[in-house]
């Protein structure tokens, strides 16, 4: 009886010791930037592009572009080697109203049939803070390409059960008329706010 009790106690202690070596869920959730450079493919399911625009001078309306795609390269040791290339199909606009989506996709605004893609491609990246980068790049929409500079916050890079993931987010504004999307100036503001959250998996 005593031998059995000791054996059970030893087994339990051994099990606990083994469990202690496993990474915990909590540990997986904590940010833990890695130092090695890597290229990540954008995860369309866990990435979001939200846009907002004033309506009739009284409201502020939000919509989104579903399923972004692209890839980004992070090199914490040499930010100048970081690159960000993110795009979305213009016809993936989603405002929770099918006819409004159709109107936004029409030639009144995005002309999604002739200009099916909206893309951002970085041209230079500079470190701006401990986890932020100043990214300058070319934003192409409606067939017009304009340089934009955005502050990107690197949210984390880590090994997870879903693979080696990294993510960032940014918020910036553009003038839609700069992209020749100027219809209905009486009803819609010129300034469009873009909120972007991108998650990628190491290629």
């Amino acid at each position, binding site marked *: 009886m005593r031998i059995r009790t000791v054996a059970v106690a030893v087994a339990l202690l051994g099990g606990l010791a083994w469990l202690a070596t496993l990474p915990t869920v909590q540990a997986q959730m904590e940010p833990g930037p890695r130092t090695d450079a890597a290229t990540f493919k954008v995860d369309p399911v866990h990435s979001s592009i939200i846009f907002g625009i004033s309506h009739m001078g009284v409201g502020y309306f939000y919509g989104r572009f579903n399923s972004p795609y692209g890839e980004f390269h992070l090199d914490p040791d040499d930010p100048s080697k970081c690159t960000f290339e993110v795009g979305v199909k213009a016809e993936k606009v989603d405002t929770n109203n099918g006819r409004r989506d159709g109107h936004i*996709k*029409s*030639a009144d605004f995005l002309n999604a*049939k*002739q200009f*099916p893609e909206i893309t951002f491609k970085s041209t230079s990246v500079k470190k701006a803070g401990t986890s932020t980068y100043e990214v300058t790049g070319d934003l192409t929409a409606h067939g*017009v390409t304009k340089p934009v500079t955005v502050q990107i916050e690197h949210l984390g890079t880590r090994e997870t059960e879903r693979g080696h993931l990294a993510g960032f987010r940014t918020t910036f504004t553009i003038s839609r008329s700069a992209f*020749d999307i100027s*219809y*209905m100036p009486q009803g819609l503001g010129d300034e469009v706010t873009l909120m972007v959250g991108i998650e990628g998996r190491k290629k």
Partner: protein
Amino acid sequence: MFQLLALSIAGAVGVCVVLMLIAWRPWRPDAALAGGRWGGAAAFTLALMPAYLLGERWPGLPPSESWQWIVYVLLVSGAVGAADSSRRWPAAVRVAVYVLPAGVAGAVLVGDWVESPWLWRAVTGLLVLVTHAVINDAGERCRGGSVPLALLVAATCASIVILEANSAKLFQLSAALAAGLGVCTVLAWWRPAVSLARGAAPVIAVALTGLVLSAKFLTYAPIPVWSFVLVSAAPLGLLAARVAPGQRRRPWIAAAVRVIAVLVPAGVAAAAAVASAAADSPYGY
């Protein structure tokens, strides 16, 4: 949007009234009115420009968007119409008068990004060509306001289809075309010698076909393709009216037959567009 629409219509009415009065000078005797057909070409070409410029800047050459070619195609058609009104040209030139607007419209209004672009270029060119010929034929044979009224019906139904397709810019332009045809209808009823033949015909053919098919190419509304094609082909009802019974009876019966022959296909197309859009989410511009 309603402000832009009202300004587009007002601009088209103003341009048409001024140019048509200057060109036709309708207070003159009947025999003198034939010389004013260039005014029809000029009026319909310029009537659509305020509507375009209310929504867009003047396009570069080449324009960045395929539908923006419409202003240049209108200018070419207007020049062709004005040239056609100036004298009786030899047969070879007459062929060019028909082929040029149709060829240019088919070539530039259909971008390479359209599915089956060559098919749609052929359809666009053919519709412009046939519509042009039918308006010329009806305008030469029929005096009075029935031909412009029938085309006003077609343009109104086309505007409904374009509106339901969710293209406000193209809707403004089609509404301006309808407004111009409204002015012409009144003028032609007052002075039956006023005609759309050999003058305004290529411009109306290009505007109607070009705007409707551009809406088909550029929009996402669940409107059937045949609805776009049918409404842009509706002026061909004037050809059907030519062989319909009642043409040799009283003029008003013949006029009613012409209008009905255009209204039936155009109305069916518009009704189909409205029904399709009604099944979609509710939305106000």
